């Protein structure tokens, strides 16, 4: 108890130091660099407010603090771009990006459908299905596992995006080549995780299945596949980002006149940076959404696992 109280006092003292230092900094900044003073003031106020909020450490403040932090960054960004008149070709202000987003929703939606839905998600589903089936197929052969797993681990660390030019050459410019890149990128991480998952049952559980004279199929379906699900979802979650990266980067090697990678590279060429940033916002939202969706399904499927119970 005393330690806790001491800790609070200590952090409060730290804040006092911070306030004093900040005030001195502000006054100095006001004389030396007048344009930077409001930026510093906003940063300081937001940071102190956050430091004060973080001291409570409840559920609500834990949700609010990062939002305030993100909002502060965006506000500082906007103020800095305006105060220093940063050219749009270097860094557009958030308001310009938002305006570009609102003006180009049609384009952004076509790009989203082309790259995310057709390229990334299709490829991810095919790659995941192939990896799961392969894992089940090699599960009965320790020889194949010993041969494939080191290679799988090795390939998972390689810069696989590099095969994009080859696959674009083979499968053409449309989304099929992007889906193919995604299939190759997500296959090995999911395979390695799924093979580890199929081994995750312990001897006692397998013995129980044997004592019920369960055939291979029943043991697989009722015991080993459910036990493998946390591992599988681990692989599926890692690969959502990989899928988006593969689909977008493959478009740099050739694409029809739509798609996020195509739009980013052509808009950069025309120095239309607000549109590029709008595409980045879409990519970020899509990535978070994709991951969140998989995490949600994981929660429903592996509700029994200790990591999901809280």
């Amino acid at each position, binding site marked *: 108890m005393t330690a806790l109280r001491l800790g609070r006092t200590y952090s409060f003292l730290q804040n006092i130091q911070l306030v004093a230092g900040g005030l001195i900094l502000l006054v100095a900044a006001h004389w030396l660099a007048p344009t930077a003073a409001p930026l510093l003031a906003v940063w300081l106020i937001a*940071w102190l407010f*956050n430091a004060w909020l*973080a*001291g409570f*450490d409840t559920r609500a*403040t834990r949700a609010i*603090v*990062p939002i*305030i*932090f*993100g909002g502060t960054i965006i506000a500082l960004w906007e103020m800095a771009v305006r105060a220093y008149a940063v050219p749009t*070709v*270097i*860094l557009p202000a958030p308001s310009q990006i938002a305006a570009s987003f609102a003006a180009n929703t049609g384009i952004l939606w076509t790009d989203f459908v082309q790259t995310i839905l057709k390229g990334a998600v299709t490829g991810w589903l095919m790659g995941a299905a192939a990896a799961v089936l392969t894992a089940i197929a090699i599960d009965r052969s320790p*020889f*194949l*596992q*010993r*041969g*494939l*797993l*080191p*290679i799988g681990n*090795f390939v998972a*660390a*390689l*810069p696989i*995006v*590099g*095969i994009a*030019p*080859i696959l*674009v*050459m*083979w499968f053409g410019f449309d989304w099929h080549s992007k889906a193919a890149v995604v299939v190759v990128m997500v296959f090995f991480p999911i395979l390695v995780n799924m093979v*580890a998952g199929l*081994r*995750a049952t312990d001897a006692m559980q397998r013995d129980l299945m044997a004592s019920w004279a369960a055939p291979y199929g029943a043991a697989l379906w009722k015991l080993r596949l459910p036990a493998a699900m946390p*591992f599988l979802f681990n692989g599926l979650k890692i690969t959502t*980002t990989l899928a*988006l*990266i593969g689909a977008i*980067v493959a478009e*740099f*090697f050739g694409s029809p006149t739509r798609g*996020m*990678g195509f739009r*980013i*590279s052509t808009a*950069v060429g025309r120095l239309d*940076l607000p549109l*590029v940033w709008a*595409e*980045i916002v879409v*990519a*970020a939202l899509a*990535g*978070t959404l*994709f*991951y969140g969706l998989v995490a949600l399904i994981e929660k429903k499927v592996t509700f029994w696992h200790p990591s999901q119970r809280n």
Partner: protein
Amino acid sequence: MRSAKGCATVTAMTKGRLVPVLTVLMVIVAVWYLAAIRMNAQWERDQAARAEVTLTLPDLVARTLVQERPVLPAPHQVAVGLWEGLAGQAITSRRSLVWHAWVTLSATLAGFAIGTGAGILLAVGIVHSRSMDQSVMPWAVASQTVPILAIAPMVIVVLSSMGITGLLPKAIIAAWLSFFPVLVGMVKGLRTPDAMQLDQMRSWSASDAQVFWRLRLPSSLPYLFASLKVAIAAALVGTIVGELPAGATAGLGARLLSGSYYGQTVQIWSALFVAALLAAGLVAIVGWLERRTLDRMGLAR
């Protein structure tokens, strides 16, 4: 929990895995040859039809394996391309893969150093300041789900419009990509000491600095090395993608792009294999450092 299990499977696998691995590799090479014959045959048939000669099957097979610009080069063609690129040129030549690999490697290492340093520093800050933890950590975790690599070309173009070219823009992308794995892993690592160990330090009336240097930092090293392996692979991918935008003339990414423009498939595959070797080498070096360090600290699992 997962790492412990992975560790057990790895030790189980090191025993007698040479034969299976070689078998699988041989199967892959065989499939590759068959695929090369199949995919290159169409072009040979067209050529033969145009010259109005009929090809026998052995002739057809022989020709598919020595094409100038095959759809899929046969393994020996890639091996020859690789050997000529690595050993057949002066290493200062623009055709030398050693030179291109060095360009990529230097940017990768520079970016890796910057990203790792920044990640560790921020992790130390996060562990010691609750407000920093609650402000920054959710964003750092969320940023892992964002395809950051997609903005690489934009960073290159914007920086070159500001007059910054060469190694630095690529290093920035590599740093950005290696930053987040290190940050997340290091925060986890610095937090591993449990309440009992922290209480022990307090009962010795250790200062904050002593707790950090004697307890938190040593116990974070296994986590740091695990994320360093991820980070260096990510840094390499970042550098290669950073070399893709038009205008880049040096580096493995530029070799990939020019190969895809001119249909030089052997060049693409050689560059790809050099990139793979580079990645494997870098990860192996970090793994070796990890084993050495953890052995000496008595933390080896």
